[in-house]
C-alpha cells in the first residue's frame, strides 16, 4: 500500500530563471573539448595537426614577396631576407598578372566595359536577392542581359535591341492568346514567333538600322575572354537560366501528360547520365557538324547553353524533392479555392517547394560556378588552368606552382562562400512555419 497525501494546488507557479553559474569559456571548453578521455585525446590530436600544418604554412605565407619581376627574383629576396633554407610565396606574380586572371585577354584599354558590366550586374541582381528593394528595379534587371551583352562583346547596339524586340514579340503573342488557348500553348506559339524573328529578321534588321544609325562599341571576340570574366559570364548566365528551366522540368516530370512527362524524364536522365565534359566537347565540336555550315555559333554561347542544360537537370531533381515534401493538402486547398494549375503552382506550390529546395539549389549553383573551370578543356581561358598555363609560359614565372592556384582558389571560395551565406540568410528569412 502506498501512502499519499491528498493535495490541491491553490496558487499556480510563476516561470523562473534557470540556475546561474552555468556559463563561461572554461565550462564551454570542458563540455565541448574535454568532456571525456576520448574527446580529450581527439582534441589534443587535432591541436597537434593544426599546429603542424600552421608551422609549415604560416612562414611560407609570411615570407611572401610582393615586389619582384620574376620567380627567380622572388627566391633571391626570400633567401636574402629569411636565410637560405626559408621558403616563401611569390605574390609578385599576382601583382603582375592579376588583370589576366580577371579579364583574360580582353583588350586592356577596354577594361572599363567588363568592370561597368560587373557593377551593373550587382545592381541588377540586388532586387532579386533582396525583396525589400523597390520592385521597379526589376525593369533594369530584365534589361540587364542586353546591356551586359553589348558592353562585353561590343558591336552595334541594334543587335541586342532587335533581340529584345523578339522577346517583346513573344510577350505580345502570349498576351493575345493566353486567355483563349491557355498558358502552355500560347507560350509555345510565342516561342515559335520569337524564334522565327531571331532566325529570319534579326540579322537583316539590325544591319539595316545600323547602316542608318551607326551606334556601337568596338567589338571584342569571344576568344579574348578569359579568367574570372569568363567564369562569371558563364556561371551567372547559366545560373539565371537554369533555375526557370529546372522548375519547368520538375513540373514536367510530375505532369499528367504522358508526352511531357516522358520528355522531361528522358532529358533529365540523359543529362545526368553524361559527364559535363562530354557535353562541353559536344558544344565545341559536334554542334559544328549538326548545324548548317554557314552558322557561326559563338563558342561561349554554346558552352553557356550546355552548362545551363546540365545544371537545369540537376536543379529539376532538387526541386522535385521539394515538391515531394509538400503535403497533398496544399494542392487540394489550392484546387478547392478554384485556383487554376499555373496559379496554384506560382502562388502556393513553388514558393514552398523552392524554399524547401534552397540548400540543394544553391549547392547546384555553387557546383555549376566551379564547373565553369572545365571550359579549359574546350580551349577557353578559365582562371584555373587556362590563365595559369599562360602565366607559366612566361619565362619570368616558369615553375611557379602554388600561388596561382591559391589566388584563383581564394576568389572562388569568396564567391561560393558568399552564395552559401546568402542562402542561409534567405532560409532564415523565409522561415514562417515556426516548427
Amino acid at each position, binding site marked *: 500500500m502506498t501512502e499519499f497525501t491528498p493535495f490541491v494546488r491553490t496558487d499556480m507557479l510563476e516561470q523562473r530563471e534557470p540556475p546561474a553559474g552555468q556559463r563561461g569559456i572554461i565550462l564551454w571548453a570542458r563540455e565541448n573539448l574535454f568532456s571525456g578521455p576520448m574527446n580529450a585525446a581527439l582534441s589534443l590530436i587535432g591541436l597537434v595537426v593544426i599546429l603542424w600544418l600552421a608551422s609549415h604554412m604560416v612562414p611560407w605565407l609570411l615570407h611572401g614577396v610582393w615586389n619582384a619581376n620574376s620567380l627567380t627574383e622572388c627566391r633571391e629576396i626570400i633567401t636574402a631576407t629569411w636565410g637560405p633554407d626559408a621558403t616563401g610565396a611569390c605574390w609578385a606574380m599576382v601583382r603582375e598578372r592579376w588583370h589576366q586572371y580577371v579579364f583574360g585577354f580582353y583588350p586592356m584599354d577596354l577594361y572599363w566595359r567588363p568592370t561597368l558590366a560587373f557593377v551593373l550586374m550587382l545592381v541588377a541582381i540586388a532586387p532579386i536577392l533582396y525583396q525589400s528593394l523597390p520592385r521597379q528595379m526589376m525593369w533594369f534587371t530584365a534589361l540587364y542581359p542586353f546591356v551586359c551583352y553589348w558592353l562585353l562583346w561590343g558591336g552595334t547596339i541594334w543587335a541586342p535591341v532587335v533581340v529584345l524586340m523578339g522577346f517583346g514579340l513573344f510577350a505580345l503573342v502570349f498576351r493575345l492568346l493566353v486567355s483563349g488557348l491557355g498558358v502552355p500553348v500560347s507560350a509555345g506559339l510565342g516561342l515559335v514567333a520569337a524564334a522565327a524573328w531571331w532566325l529570319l529578321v534579326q540579322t537583316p534588321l539590325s544591319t539595316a538600322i545600323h547602316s542608318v544609325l551607326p551606334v556601337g562599341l568596338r567589338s571584342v571576340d569571344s576568344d579574348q575572354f578569359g579568367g574570372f570574366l569568363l567564369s562569371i559570364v558563364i556561371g551567372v548566365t547559366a545560373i539565371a537560366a537554369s533555375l526557370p528551366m529546372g522548375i519547368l522540368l520538375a513540373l514536367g516530370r510530375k505532369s499528367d501528360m504522358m508526352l511531357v512527362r516522358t520528355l522531361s524524364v528522358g532529358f533529365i536522365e540523359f543529362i545526368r547520365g553524361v559527364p559535363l565534359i562530354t557535353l562541353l566537347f559536344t558544344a565545341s565540336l559536334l554542334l559544328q557538324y549538326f548545324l548548317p555550315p554557314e552558322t557561326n555559333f559563338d563558342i561561349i554561347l554554346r558552352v553557356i547553353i550546355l552548362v545551363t542544360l546540365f545544371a537545369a537537370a540537376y536543379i529539376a531533381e532538387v526541386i522535385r524533392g521539394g515538391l515531394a515534401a509538400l503535403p497533398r493538402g496544399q494542392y487540394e486547398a489550392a484546387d*478547392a479555392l478554384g485556383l487554376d494549375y499555373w496559379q496554384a503552382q506560382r502562388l502556393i506550390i513553388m514558393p514552398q517547394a523552392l524554399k524547401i529546395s534552397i540548400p540543394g539549389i544553391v549547392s547546384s549553383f555553387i557546383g555549376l560556378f566551379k564547373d565553369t573551370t572545365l571550359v579549359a578543356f574546350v580551349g577557353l581561358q578559365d582562371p584555373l588552368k587556362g590563365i595559369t598555363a599562360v602565366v607559366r609560359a612566361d619565362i619570368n614565372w616558369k615553375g611557379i606552382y602554388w600561388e596561382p592556384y591559391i589566388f584563383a582558389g581564394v576568389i572562388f571560395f569568396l564567391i561560393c562562400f558568399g552564395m552559401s551565406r546568402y542562402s542561409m540568410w534567405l532560409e532564415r528569412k523565409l522561415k514562417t512555419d515556426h516548427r
Partner: protein
Amino acid sequence: MAEQAIDRSKMMVSDEVAIQINNMNKWYGQFHVLRDVNMTVYKGERIVICGPSGSGKSTLIRCINRLEEHQAGQIVVDGTELTNDLKNIDKVRSEVGMVFQHFNLFPHLTILENCTLAPIWVRKIPKREAEETAMHFLSKVKIPDQAHKYPGQLSGGQQQRVAIARSLCMKPRIMLFDEPTSALDPEMIKEVLDTMIELAEEGMTMLCVTHEMGFAQAVANRVIFMDKGQIVEQNEPREFFNNPQSERTKLFLSQILGH
C-alpha cells in the same frame, strides 16, 4: 456541446436544388468506393454525414468539388454538371467552399494573405476590397487580431477558424466540411463548432462529415449514415438518433455513443 438554443426558424430550407447526385459511382482501381449514390441537397440544408472509417463519406463530399473524380453517374452543383471540362470544375470550386481535417492553410502566407489570395486571383477583386472582406470574415470567426501572423503561430482551433474564413471570403453558396474537428484538441472543438453553428444560422448550405453527434442534433436537418460506399440510412436527426432503423446504424450509434 452545442446545446445552446438554436433558432431553427432562421434555418429555413428552400425547395431550390443546390446539389443533385444521380446514381454516382466511383472506384479506386478495382475498389468500388461509392456505389449508386443518389442524393438531392436543397438550398439552406445542413446535412451531417457519418459512418465508419472507409465508408466513403469523405470521398463523397470530395467528389462534389471534384477533388475526386467519379466514374459513373451525374453530379450537378448549383446548375453546373461536373464533367472533364476544366472551366466547369473551376466554376464549381469557386462556388463551393471546403474545410479540411488538417486545415491546409498556406504556411508561407500570413492569415490575411491566406484569405485574400483566392478572391484576388480567382474572383479578380481589387486587393483593398479583398482585404476588407477578409477582415470582416476574420472578425466573424473572432481572430481579426491575428491577421498578420503566420498559420504556424496559431493554435489548431484558430487555424481551423481561419480556414473557414478563407472559404467564406470566396462568398460560396455551399460549404463542405471534411471532419473539421477530428484533428483538434477537445478544448478547441467547441470554438470551431460554434463558428459552424453561426454559419448554419445564417442559412448556409452545409455538408458536414463529422462524428460530433451533438452538433448533428443541434444543427442538422438531415443525418446521412454511410457504410461500404453506400447511403444506408438518412433521417431527420431526432428520429435518426432515437429510432435508427437499420442494424448497421444501430451498431454504429451504440459504438460511438456508448462510451
